[in-house]
C-alpha cells in the first residue's frame, strides 16, 4: 500500500493537513507515512515545554518553520506558581537556532524569555517573521530593540500581556527605515512612552499593517495621526482614551475613524472619558470584537456604545455594564459568540455595581450563538444556571467565578451542584469549564457522567472527598488539563487513577490534601510522569510522609525529570530520596 503513491504525492496530500491531530493520525498509519510526514511537518505545537526536549523534537522533525511553546501552568496567571519555577525558553532557542536556520515563527506562552533569547532569535533566523509572547516575562525593552533592529522581514510582533522591564521607549526606533513588512504590532503591555515620531513613521511605511495595539502612553490627541496613516487597519488598540474635552480633538478623532473602513476590532480604552466614545460611532456597525475590559466607563454611555455594535461577536467588558447593559446587549447583538465580564472591584465583598446572574441569563437567552463565557459576579442560583444550560446547549467554554468562595445558591442556600450539572448535561460540546460557589462531590459525579468532551477543568474550594476527584478522573474521557486549588482531594483518587494522568497534559493541585508519600509513590510508579512537588516552606520530607504537600504539578513527559528546578521544587522519581538529600544539603547553607 505504501508503495502505491510516490512520496511527493503523499507529501502533497499531507500539505493540506494543518491540524496537529490529523498529522499525528497520519503518522500512525505506517512507517513510511510516518517518515514522509515528519519530513514535511512545518509547524510544531508543544503544549508543555517540559513534556519533550528540543533534541527529540529536532530529531523527528528536521525542517520546521513555526514553533509554539507553552511553559508555566495556567494558575501562574493568578500568582499561584512561585517566581523562578521555570519555563525558560533559552535552551530551546539555542537548539532551534542550530537546527532550523529557516525558522520563521516563534510563539510562546507563559515562558521566561530573556534579552539573551531575544537577541539570539534576532540573529539566528534570517527569515524570521513572527514573534508572539503571551504572558511571558524576563525580558526588557533592550531585547525588543534587538528584534526590531535585526529581523529584516518581521511581520508580527505581539507582546501579549507580558511583563516587560521597561528601560525606555527608544527600542521602537531600532526598526530600520527600510522595514516595511509589519502586519501586526501589539505593544499594549508596555509602560513607557515610545517615541511617537518613530511610531508614526513606522506605521506610515508599513502598508500591510492590519493590527496595531498601542500602549497606554500614546495620548488620544495623537491617535488620529496614526489612523490617517493606516486607514487599512483591521484591529486597533487605543492608548489612554482620555483627553480634555475639546471639540477639535473630538472632530479629528471622529474624522480619523471615519476613514477606517476596514476596522473590525477595538481594544485599549484605558482611562476612558465617555464623551469621546461617540467619536467611534462611524465604525461601530462593522465592529466584531470589542475589548472594553480596561474601560471604566459606566452606563448609560457604556451600554449606548456597545449597543451600537450590532455585529458584535466578541465582547470583553467590566461589570460596569450591569444587568441592564447586558439585557440591552442581548437585544442588539444577536451575533455574539463570546462574552467576558470582569470585576471592577474584585476585592470588595459588597457589590459596587448591579451585576448579578440575571445579566448572564439574559445574554444566554438572547444570543443564540453564545458559546464562550467568562463571568465574574457575586451571586448565582441553580435556577439561573439551569436556564443558561437550557438556552445554550451550544456552549463550549463556560467559566463562572462567583467572587466569594463557596457561595451557595443565594435563593435556596443549596449547593450549586444542580446548576453546573445542568450545564454539563445539556452542553454536550463543552470543552472548558471553570466552576465556583458551593459545590459538593455530587457535581463531580455529574461532570464525570456527562462531560465527555471536556478538555479543561478548573476547580476551587469545592468538593467533599476523594470521590469528587475520582469522578472526574475516571469519567472525563477527553480531559487534558485539570487544575485544582483548595479542595479536599487527597491520595486515594490520585493513586487509583494514576494511569489517567498519562492521557492528560497536566494536573495541578494546590492546597489540597495530597500527601508527600503519595507523591513519591506516584513518581516512582509512573516513570512517564513528572511528579513535581512545590513546597516553599521547606523540603517535603522534613515532616511525616502523611503531611500534605503545598502544591503538586504532574505532567506527562518523554524528556524525563527536568534539570532546571529551583530549590522549592522537588521531582518525585526513583531517585527521590537521594535527590532530596542532595537538595537539602544545597539548601542548608
Amino acid at each position, binding site marked *: 500500500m505504501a508503495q502505491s503513491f510516490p512520496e511527493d504525492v503523499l507529501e502533497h496530500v499531507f500539505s493540506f493537513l494543518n491540524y496537529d491531530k490529523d498529522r499525528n493520525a497520519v503518522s500512525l498509519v505506517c512507517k513510511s507515512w510516518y517518515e514522509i510526514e515528519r519530513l514535511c511537518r512545518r509547524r510544531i505545537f508543544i503544549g508543555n515545554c517540559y513534556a519533550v526536549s528540543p533534541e527529540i523534537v529536532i530529531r523527528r522533525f528536521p525542517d520546521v518553520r513555526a514553533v509554539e511553546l507553552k511553559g508555566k501552568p495556567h494558575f501562574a496567571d493568578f500568582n499561584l506558581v512561585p*517566581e523562578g519555577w521555570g519555563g525558560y525558553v533559552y535552551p530551546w532557542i539555542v537548539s532551534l537556532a542550530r537546527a532550523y536556520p529557516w525558522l520563521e515563527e516563534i510563539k510562546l506562552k507563559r515562558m521566561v524569555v530573556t534579552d539573551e533569547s531575544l537577541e539570539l532569535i534576532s540573529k539566528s533566523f534570517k527569515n524570521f517573521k513572527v514573534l508572539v509572547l503571551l504572558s511571558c516575562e524576563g525580558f526588557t525593552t533592550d531585547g525588543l530593540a534587538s528584534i526590531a533592529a535585526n529581523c529584516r522581514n518581521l511581520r508580527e510582533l505581539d507582546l501579549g500581556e507580558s511583563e516587560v*522591564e521597561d528601560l525606555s521607549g527608544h527600542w521602537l526606533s531600532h526598526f530600520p527605515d527600510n522595514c516595511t513588512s509589519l502586519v501586526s504590532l501589539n505593544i499594549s503591555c508596555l*509602560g513607557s512612552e515610545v517615541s511617537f515620531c518613530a511610531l508614526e513613521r513606522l506605521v506610515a511605511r508599513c502598508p500591510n499593517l492590519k493590527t496595531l495595539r498601542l500602549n497606554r502612553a500614546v495620548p488620544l490627541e495623537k491617535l488620529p495621526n496614526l489612523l490617517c496613516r493606516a486607514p487599512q487597519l483591521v484591529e486597533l488598540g487605543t492608548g489612554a482614551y482620555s483627553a480634555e474635552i475639546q471639540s477639535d480633538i473630538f472632530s479629528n478623532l471622529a474624522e480619523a475613524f471615519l476613514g477606517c473602513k476596514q476596522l473590525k476590532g477595538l481594544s485599549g480604552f484605558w482611562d476612558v472619558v465617555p464623551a469621546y466614545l461617540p467619536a467611534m460611532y462611524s465604525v461601530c456597525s462593522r465592529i466584531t470584537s470589542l475589548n472594553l475590559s480596561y474601560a471604566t466607563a459606566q452606563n448609560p454611555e457604556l451600554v449606548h456604545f456597545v449597543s451600537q455594535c450590532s455585529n458584535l461577536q466578541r465582547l470583553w467588558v467590566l461589570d460596569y455594564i450591569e444587568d441592564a447593559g447586558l439585557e440591552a446587549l442581548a437585544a442588539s447583538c444577536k451575533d455574539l459568540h463570546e462574552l467576558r465580564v470582569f470585576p471592577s472591584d474584585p476585592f470588595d465583598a459588597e457589590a459596587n455595581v448591579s451585576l448579578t446572574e440575571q445579566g448572564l441569563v439574559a445574554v444566554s437567552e438572547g444570543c443564540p450563538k453564545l458559546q464562550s463565557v467568562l463571568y465574574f459576579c457575586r451571586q448565582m442560583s441553580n435556577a439561573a444556571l439551569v436556564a443558561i444550560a437550557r438556552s445554550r446547549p451550544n456552549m463550549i467554554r463556560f467559566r463562572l467565578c462567583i467572587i466569594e468562595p463557596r457561595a451557595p445558591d443565594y435563593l435556596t442556600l*443549596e*449547593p450549586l451542584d444542580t446548576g453546573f450539572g445542568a450545564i454539563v448535561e445539556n452542553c454536550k460540546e463543552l470543552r472548558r469549564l471553570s466552576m465556583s460557589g458551593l459545590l459538593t462531590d455530587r457535581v463531580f459525579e455529574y461532570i464525570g457522567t456527562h462531560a465527555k468532551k471536556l478538555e479543561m477543568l478548573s476547580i476551587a474550594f469545592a*468538593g467533599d*472527598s*476523594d470521590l469528587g476527584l475520582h469522578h472526574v478522573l475516571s469519567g472525563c474521557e477527553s480531559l487534558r488539563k485539570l487544575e485544582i486549588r483548595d479542595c479536599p482531594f487527597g491520595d486515594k483518587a490520585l493513586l*487509583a487513577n494514576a494511569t489517567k494522568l498519562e492521557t492528560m497534559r497536566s494536573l495541578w493541585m494546590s492546597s489540597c490534601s495530597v500527601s508527600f508519600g503519595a507523591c513519591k509513590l506516584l513518581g516512582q510508579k509512573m516513570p512517564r510522569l513528572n511528579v513535581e512537588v512545590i513546597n516553599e516552606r521547606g523540603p517535603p520530607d522534613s515532616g511525616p510522609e502523611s503531611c500534605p504537600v503545598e502544591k503538586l504539578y504532574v505532567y506527562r513527559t518523554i524528556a524525563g525529570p527536568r534539570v532546571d528546578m529551583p530549590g522549592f521544587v522537588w521531582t518525585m522519581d526513583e531517585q527521590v530520596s537521594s535527590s532530596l538529600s542532595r537538595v537539602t544539603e544545597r539548601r542548608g547553607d
Partner: protein
Amino acid sequence: MEGYSRKDEGCPQLLDLIPKEKEWLTKSAEEKQTRNGSSEEKQLELRLGPPNGDWTIKNKNISREKDHESLLPFGYFSPWSSSSGYQVKSQKQTTPFLQAHGQLKESSQPNPAKTAVPNSSSSSSAQKRTAPTPVVGWPPIRSFRKNLANGSSSKPVSESQNAVGSKISSEKPIENSPKNLLVKINMDGVPIGRKVDLKEHDSYEKLSFAVDELFRGLLAAQSNFSAGGIKNDEDGGKAITGLLDGSGEYTLVYEDNEGDRLLIGDVPWHMFVSSVKRLRVLKSSELPTLCRGRKHGKRSLDTSPK
C-alpha cells in the same frame, strides 16, 4: 446536604453515589454491618478502579499494612496513614483548604462538629458574614486587571520600578511616571487619614519618621479628646516609634496591589514602592501572630500559623 462524611452514615451513602453502570464490586451485606475501620477500608478499596472502566479484583493483593509495594496501577491503593476509617481522613482533608482560606484559625485538628459538613451553607455562611480574608490568587484575575475601580491616578508607579525587575509590581498598563506617589495612610484610633508621598523618601526608616510626623499631633489631639482634655506636655504629642520592628505600640503595615496586607520591610524599598497601594498604622497588640514563611519575600498577615 446529607451528612455524607458523618461516620455512621458514611458507608451506605458512599454506595448510593456510585453509578450503577460501573461494575462496582461490593462486599456482601454482612460486611457493611461491621463498623470497624478495616471493613470500611475494604469496601473503599473496591470502589475505585482504572480510568477505562476495567474493574479488576486486585484487593486480595493489597495488605492491610499499607505496603507500598502493593500498588498496582489497575487496582486500588489502600490508605497508608494509620488513621482508621474514611471519615477521619476526610475531616483531615478539609483542613488544608479551610486553613488556606483563612477562615479557621484554630489548631490543625479541626473540631469535627464544625467540619463534618465543611461545605454546608450553615457553617460557612456564618464564617462568610465576616469580612472576607484575602486569598492568594482569588478571585482568579490577572494582576493588571486589579484595581481598575480605583482609577489610574492612585496607581503607584515609580521610576525605580522601571529600573529593576518589575516582577512584584504588576500594574503594567499604566506607567506614566508621575512626579509624586501619594498613598493613603490611616492609623488605628484616628478617624482622619493622611496621604504620604513615597517619592520623598528612599528608605523605610525615612518613611517611619514621616509617619511619626504625620500622626503624632493627630494622635495627641485624639487622646486629649478622650482623656478629657488633659494636655500633653510635649510639643504636639508623644513620638510614635518602633513602627518597623514591632517594638512600638504601633506597627506599620501596607496593602499591596493584590489586596494582601503585609508587614513593612520585607522587600527592598523600590519593590515596596512599586506594589504598595495604601498604608496602615495598626496597634501592635492587635496584629495576629505572624507566620515566618518563605513566601517569596512576603510575610502575609493572613496566613494562619502552621
